[in-house]
């Protein structure tokens, strides 16, 4: 009996220890704490850290950590601390991760999520807590539509979205004599959302879509879809997915003897593809539209620092998170380290970033450049850099 009472007291104490800080804490807009004469600005990276998409969050965290390290080493009034929350790349996970970052980890600003679904799921929390979120890599146009004027004023997007990319990329296809296009995309919000725009814009350019296929992320076998696409007789294939899936898909196209011009989205034309494929010529000729520069020519310093820190090539999520922290630092330098200060400063940001101009419109969408790249002789080569700010 005595034993049971002691256990009850222990359990109640443990519960109080977990719950009370959450109840008594102020919301995430509280100003940063002071440390060694420098004010700490806590930046929360929301991203997937578990499951099939765990690399989104892991890469973003690495990029953000590296940027914070560089900023902290440079000295100044502010010190940057990166914390993370797992959004599982789902709307529910996004809501949970954003709540955790704001109310438990007391961040001044959120960076992310790399997943559109998670970003959309977390947006309501931002409005309640009045904490800004800088989106740097997720591409759903819905986020732009729901941000800024008439929507959520705390969401800011630094990267080019699917709608802008689809319009420019389908025009490029049309200019390069593509008349019949088939599509294959990963069967999730990202893939389905992107294909909606590509199909509409292809129609607008007079390109007919012969077939649209979907696959489960990480699925090993694409022959079923490729067979169907092949018999629809397209003139080109658009793939929206990831570089890992693209390697397998191209090998299976080769197995089937199926050769066709390939257009891609999703870090396919990248160093990561070349490292995985081992056959440098596998992707030769594939053309990709991206919202970052996989040749690293736009930011040689970042790539070298990343290589030195982690021993691997920086992927898009890492580079974009790095640049996102830099943008946050500019906002902090302009206005201060609290959520309200950052929110106010973001509205007047005008930064000529390595990815192009970053100045937010009334939907809080920036208009940096769009990069078109290809593989040539087993190397990533930039074809064009298209401004999107006009």
């Amino acid at each position, binding site marked *: 009996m005595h034993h049971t009472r002691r256990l009850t007291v222990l359990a109640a104490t443990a519960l109080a220890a977990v719950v009370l800080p959450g109840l008594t804490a102020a919301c995430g807009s509280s100003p940063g704490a002071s440390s060694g004469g420098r004010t700490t600005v806590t930046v929360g990276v929301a991203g997937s850290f578990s499951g099939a998409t765990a690399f989104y969050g*892991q890469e973003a965290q690495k990029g953000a950590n590296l940027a914070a390290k560089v900023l902290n080493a440079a000295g100044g009034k502010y010190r940057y601390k990166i914390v993370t929350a797992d959004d599982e790349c789902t709307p529910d996970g996004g809501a949970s991760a954003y709540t955790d970052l704001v109310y438990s980890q007391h961040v001044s600003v959120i960076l992310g999520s790399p997943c559109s679904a998670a970003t959309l799921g977390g947006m309501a929390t931002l409005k309640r807590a009045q904490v800004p979120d800088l989106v740097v890599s997720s591409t759903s146009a819905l986020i732009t539509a729901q941000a800024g004027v008439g929507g959520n004023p705390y969401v800011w997007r630094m990267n080019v979205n699917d709608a802008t990319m689809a319009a420019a990329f389908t025009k490029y296809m049309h200019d390069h004599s593509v008349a019949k296009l088939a599509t294959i995309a990963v069967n999730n919000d990202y893939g389905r959302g992107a294909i909606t725009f590509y199909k509409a814009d292809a129609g607008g350019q007079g390109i007919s879509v012969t077939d649209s296929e*979907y696959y489960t992320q990480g699925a*090993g076998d694409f*022959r079923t879809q490729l067979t169907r696409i092949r018999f629809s007789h397209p003139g080109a294939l658009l793939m929206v997915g990831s570089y*890992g899936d693209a390697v397998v898909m191209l090998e299976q196209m080769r197995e089937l*003897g199926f050769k066709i011009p390939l257009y891609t989205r999703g870090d396919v034309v990248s160093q990561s593809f070349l490292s995985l494929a081992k056959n440098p010529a596998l992707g030769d000729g594939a053309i990709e539209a991206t919202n970052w520069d996989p040749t690293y020519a736009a930011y040689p310093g970042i790539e070298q620092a990343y290589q030195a820190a982690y021993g691997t090539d920086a992927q898009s999520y890492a580079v974009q998170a790095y640049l996102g922290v830099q943008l946050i630092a500019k906002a902090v330098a302009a206005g201060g380290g609290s959520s309200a200060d950052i929110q106010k400063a973001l509205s007047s940001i005008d930064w000529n970033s390595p990815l192009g101009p970053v100045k937010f419109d009334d939907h809080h969408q920036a208009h940096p450049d769009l990069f078109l790249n290809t593989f040539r002789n087993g190397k990533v080569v930039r074809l064009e850099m298209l401004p999107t700010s006009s």
Partner: protein
Amino acid sequence: VFFDQLVNGLTLGSQYALVAGGLALIFSVVGIANFAQGEFYMVAAFMIYGLESAGLPYVACCVVTLVGMAVFGLVVYGVALRPVTGRGWETQLVATLAVSLLLTNLAIATLGSLPVLVRSPLLAHTVSIGPTDVSDQRLLVFAATAMALIVLGGMVKFSKIGKGMRAVSQNREAAMIMGIPVRRVEMTAVVIGCVFAGVAAVTIAPLGTVVPTVGAPLTIKAFAAVVMGGFGNISGPIVSGLILGLVEAYAGGYISSAYADAFVFGVMIVILVVRPRGLFGRAVRAA
């Protein structure tokens, strides 16, 4: 299209059949529904990837991986399955789910979540069969699956340990009274289940990428095959695995790839409505 999708369906079906075969064997003999069967495939796939990265040729990688999976089976039986044999299904469910989650997250934590490729020299060469081209690797998948199933069938029917498995699956207590070493028989079944996952991995992994989360969807498909084939027998789930692969390929090929999984589980539901005990299940009178 028909012949192309036949090849595609048989490849998918081979994978499901091998994983479902191991799952059914463990369920029949040990009496545990193993929710970590797909993760056994993942472990074997990363095992062959590691060996290949160390510079071993493909054939040696296959052999060492299969031996490694046998050892892995011994460990899994001793650590996770043996302690819960004879316990309630809830305990067994939680135990195998724990193994599944542990293996997946251990792989993510130690190996990362980026995809890796297993290379095989058989991928480079293709042969024309009828109207389609098929890589030697895919032919190896068919041959290895057929061989594994024949060896298992022969062993269960003719060998002493196989007869022991049948006896234990029919009546564990009676088998024990008759002097059959039940623990050893159970251990053998788990080892074979793991080796089956290994056969699937060494032949099929080179056709795609390997990620730590590759196991969960396989487990679901394997369970669908076992439910469809009927619990308590081994041949039913294997045949059902092949059928599910073909349904997935033909549904994806002729209707829509976006809903291929829906068709797979739709077929399973229809079969269960028509034959509640599964395709090969038999009525069992309660004792």
